């Protein structure tokens, strides 16, 4: 856990006081909606179809058990008893009343939580690997660098009114769990040939109506230069990014129109004027931030303890272990993923009761720490392997032990037209129906790793372009239709999916997914060839033929 200091607490408390005053002035009529809207957006407050929605940042996806309890309290006291974990390590409450928002924010602030920079044309919540600090393949903990960037870019006066929103993600593992290539800035930590650790910097990634993967503009950036180089990118964007057309305002359009090489030259020029100034990182500053990340004092444990060996005799446990438990960098420990994708459930939602129970289990089994991933699942990062049998039973009791992590029913979905004022079509019922079609986990396991992403509109909050199967809801003559892409992926080999063919109506979309799954089973070269690899090998045409032959 990162331990916030007095500066952070003061900042958040001051923001709550400001917002309380702003809400009072809006409710009294002293502020018009035009004046108030940018103020509420700066605090993550949107007006959706049925109510106000509050988005709260979970920096680098790390939550303490006390913070989770506070989220449960807010869900229960101010909302309708649940929250929605998003694809960017945030949580959203869908039914908050404006009149009660200042109290809700004050309660959240007591746990160090807030909605600052979760909306608006500023640098949004900086995301990273949900396994940061415990992943066996990690170079070092990327959260230290995410926190550095968070501190530098929070309320940064030069970057509080950018042409458009700005998203940064980091990974420090060979396997990218943070989807860095679809971010405005993606940072991949690695060790170069000389043994130095630094960052590969990509820019201009993003989805929405004009999807692009990030392009590498700096193959290796030394750690000392992280802030100055990011500052140079943002200054270049701030100077040249378009403000006349919202659809062309993201940095991805600028990079595309200028060309990555020219954009890189502009950044380089700016960077050289600032790189040796105040933003050059003093190792003592980095060490100070690193020191504020508290790591558990693990007791020494061996891998595969007798409790685990005994539990393996049970099939249900074995299935869950193989699916939801991952290797930890410390022997005798494990990382446990909690599926928020039960059969027939809304992806990413958790009730207040589940949040409280997860907090309790985190205290008992995970040194009080919980992680949130962009796949809309949670994780307990510090579990002793001997505790896995008891933990599985407890997770099963609260409905978060479905062994479907990374399988076809582990669907990433935005709230869609059931909640969102931007959406054209529903996402949640589509996801629910697909999970029912693939409720048989033997079938799902046979299909293997297969990510479905669903967005209810072109803004792509469900990241449909990078789903192995991507589903985009559109509206045609008042009816919901769904366009399907296949072959997208979000990891270190990121790719955008290819459109399969004409959109299909709501009533057929789950059938289409079944057809694609059936085609894959026939087309795969061998049982362990993943769906995504089969698509890469055979292309989309065989899938297209299967889906559209009967339509």
């Amino acid at each position: 856990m990162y331990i916030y200091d007095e500066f952070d607490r003061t900042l958040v408390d001051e923001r709550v006081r400001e917002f309380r005053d702003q809400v009072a002035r809006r409710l009294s009529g002293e502020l018009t909606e035009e004046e108030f809207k940018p103020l509420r957006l700066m605090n993550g407050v949107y007006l959706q179809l049925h109510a106000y929605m509050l988005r709260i940042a979970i920096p680098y996806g790390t939550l303490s058990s006390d913070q989770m309890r506070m989220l449960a309290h807010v869900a229960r006291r101010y909302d309708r008893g649940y929250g929605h974990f998003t694809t960017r390590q945030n949580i959203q409450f869908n039914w908050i009343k404006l009149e009660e928002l200042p109290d809700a924010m004050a309660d959240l602030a007591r746990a160090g939580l807030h909605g600052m920079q979760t909306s608006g044309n500023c640098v949004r919540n900086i995301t990273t690997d949900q396994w940061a600090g415990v992943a066996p393949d990690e170079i070092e903990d990327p959260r230290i660098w995410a926190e550095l960037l968070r501190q530098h870019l929070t309320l940064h006066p030069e970057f509080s009114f950018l042409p458009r929103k700005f998203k940064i993600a980091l990974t420090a593992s060979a396997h990218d769990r943070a989807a860095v290539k679809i971010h405005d800035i993606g940072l991949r930590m690695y060790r170069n040939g000389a043994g130095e650790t630094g960052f590969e910097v990509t820019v201009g990634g993003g989805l929405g109506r004009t999807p692009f993967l990030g392009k590498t503009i700096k193959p290796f950036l030394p750690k000392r230069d992280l802030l100055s180089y990011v500052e140079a990118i943002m200054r270049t964007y701030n100077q040249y990014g378009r403000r006349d057309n919202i659809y062309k305002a993201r940095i991805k359009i600028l990079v595309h129109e200028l060309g990555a090489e020219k954009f890189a030259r502009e950044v380089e020029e700016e960077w050289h004027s600032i790189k040796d100034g105040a933003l050059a990182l003093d190792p003592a500053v980095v060490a100070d931030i690193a020191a504020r990340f508290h790591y558990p004092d693990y007791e020494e444990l061996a891998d595969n303890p007798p409790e685990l060996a005994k539990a393996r005799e049970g099939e249900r446990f074995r299935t869950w272990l193989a699916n939801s438990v991952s290797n930890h960098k410390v022997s005798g420990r494990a990382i446990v993923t909690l599926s928020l994708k039960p059969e027939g459930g809304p992806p990413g939602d958790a009730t207040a009761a589940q949040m409280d129970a997860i907090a309790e289990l985190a205290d008992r089994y995970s040194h009080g720490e919980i992680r949130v991933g962009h796949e809309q699942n949670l994780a307990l990062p510090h579990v002793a392997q001997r505790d896995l049998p008891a933990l599985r039973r407890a997770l099963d009791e609260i409905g978060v032990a479905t062994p479907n992590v990374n399988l076809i029913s582990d669907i990433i979905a935005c709230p869609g037209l059931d909640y969102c004022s931007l959406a054209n079509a529903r996402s949640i019922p589509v996801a629910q129906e697909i999970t029912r079609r693939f409720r048989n986990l033997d079938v799902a396991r046979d299909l293997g790793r297969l990510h479905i992403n669903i967005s209810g509109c072109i803004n792509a909050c469900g990241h449909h372009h990078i789903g192995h199967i991507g589903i985009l809801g559109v509206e045609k003559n008042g009816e919901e239709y769904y366009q399907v892409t296949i072959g997208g992926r979000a990891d270190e080999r990121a790719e955008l999916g290819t459109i399969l063919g004409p959109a299909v109506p709501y009533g057929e979309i789950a059938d289409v997914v079944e057809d694609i799954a059936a085609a894959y089973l026939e087309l795969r070269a061998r049982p362990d060839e993943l769906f995504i690899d089969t698509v890469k090998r055979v292309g989309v045409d065989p899938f297209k033929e299967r889906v559209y032959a009967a339509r």
Partner: protein
Amino acid sequence: MTSPLQQKLKITGPVVVTANRLGDGAVVYRSGDGSWTEELAAAAVVTTTPAAMELLTAALSDKLRAVDAYVAPVELTPHQQVLPGNLRERIRFNGPTVALPGES
């Protein structure tokens, strides 16, 4: 963003003016007496462009009780019951089409 008053209104059937209540965001409809109601049945239904424009103009001049007013289609049943005119409005009126977490 273009103001609703600057948008071209082309009314081809019955419509109401709807918005979200300022204090809690709840869906509300403009009634004939200039108040806001949660009951679609109590909303003022108009069928011509001038009448819709008049209703919307009055709604938008209310800066305190409701936010983001706009014209929305409705359907009238043979018994003159007022129903939301498209899926988005049905969802706004009835709530999400899925059970909320925690509901059985």
